[in-house]
């Protein structure tokens, strides 16, 4: 049976921990809100960009060929030399968030004949290194807070390696944010080469006026290649923001349940503490009264 002092200490340490988990919950919710807000602001730009690319494909698509987009690549066959960009968090304590996206990347690695691993976020970085996976050493980005500048740096580094012929296809493993308090869904998308069909979704073609004739200077291919890079930045950025939001949301959930557990534990401990105190009092009274009785008996 623990002493009242021991229980008191435990109550204190549990409620201190609860303060921390509660604070982490609040921090995560603020961080998430801020990231979503910044991402909202860039949405109109990338929507317009996507629309223009779609229009160019709709009008000139048949004659355009480039290494950035290729209609012949089958999505389901992932063999070959792949570049894999994995987006993890900086820290743990976020439920299965990091594990899920790492598992997703492992599946992709198994399918590849050869791969190069680009890792964003310290957690994933440490994980792959300690488990002996070949990580690109000079590709270092922390998941502190996703920004457009960061997405731009990442895209530039990846495109440099792509241009140097280090890989033929580029995949990104990230966590799609599903809103509210939930773990996102870990998934992978192919970034390069683009699937032309991505830009011609069904039912959306009505807003593209294909009858307008444009002059392209110097030619469609040059213009497309240039804006494709901007589009890639947008894609990477949205993957970053989605992952970041999922991470914060996962952490909120983890902290929420930690809070609940702490409350439950505190309840039990307090009950136990009161029992003990009550027992001690009862025992003391019994001792005093029996002592008094024996004194009285002696007097007689």
């Amino acid at each position: 049976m623990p002493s009242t002092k021991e229980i008191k200490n435990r109550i204190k340490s549990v409620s201190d921990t609860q303060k921390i988990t509660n604070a982490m919950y609040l921090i995560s919710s603020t961080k998430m809100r801020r990231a979503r807000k910044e991402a909202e602001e860039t949405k109109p730009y990338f929507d317009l960009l996507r629309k223009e690319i779609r229009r160019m494909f709709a009008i000139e698509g048949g004659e355009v060929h480039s290494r950035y987009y290729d209609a012949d690549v089958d999505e389901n066959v992932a063999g070959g030399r792949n570049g894999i960009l994995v987006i993890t968090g900086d820290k743990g304590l976020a439920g299965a968030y990091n594990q899920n996206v790492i598992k997703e990347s492992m599946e992709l690695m198994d399918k590849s004949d050869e791969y190069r691993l680009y890792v964003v976020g310290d957690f994933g970085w440490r994980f792959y290194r300690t488990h002996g996976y070949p990580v690109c050493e000079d590709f270092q980005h922390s998941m502190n807070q996703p920004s457009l500048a960061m997405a731009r740096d990442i895209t530039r580094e990846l495109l440099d390696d792509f241009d140097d012929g280090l890989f033929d296809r580029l995949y990104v493993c990230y966590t799609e944010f599903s809103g509210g308090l939930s773990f996102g869904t870990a998934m992978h998308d192919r970034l390069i080469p683009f699937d032309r069909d991505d830009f011609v979704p069904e039912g959306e073609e009505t807003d593209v006026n294909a009858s307008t004739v444009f002059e392209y200077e110097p030619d469609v291919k040059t213009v497309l290649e240039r804006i494709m890079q901007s589009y890639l930045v947008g894609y990477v950025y949205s993957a970053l923001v989605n992952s970041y939001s999922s991470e914060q949301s996962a952490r909120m959930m983890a902290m929420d349940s930690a809070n609940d557990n702490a409350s439950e534990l505190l309840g039990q401990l307090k009950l136990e503490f009161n029992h003990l105190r009550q027992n001690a009092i009862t025992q003391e009274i019994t001792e005093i009264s029996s002592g008094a009785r024996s004194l009285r008996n002696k007097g007689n």
Partner: protein
Amino acid sequence: MATFKLHFMASDHMVYEGDAESVSVMTTEGSIGILAYHSNLIMAVVPGIVEYVPAGKGAEAAGMTGKQISVVSDGLLKVENNDVMILVDTAENPEEIDEARAKRAEEKAREDLKRANSNRDVALASAELSRALSRIKASKSKHHL
């Protein structure tokens, strides 16, 4: 003077939306000037300067008179039926450039600081951070003068 609609948008904010008399943009083919009723055109924008002359009541109300200058990075220029759209990754007013650069330096320094391994790294990164912060402060106070 005849005007056209100009939508000038950077990835994180709208630079200008409204009527304009002229705009000049750097493209892969060199600098190009656009007036009203230009033929339909799509070109790639390269880093450089965009100059535009706003017109109409909206521009006057916003205190935009005469030529406006913006420094842009890569992007897209589209002219469609007297409607000009400029989409660029980044656009900054000349006086904002120092601040934007300093902000990026700050972000970078904070990231370096987080993953610094040795005392030396920490010292270097925090020096870089304080430099960036004082640059931001200086450029902010410049605006208020």
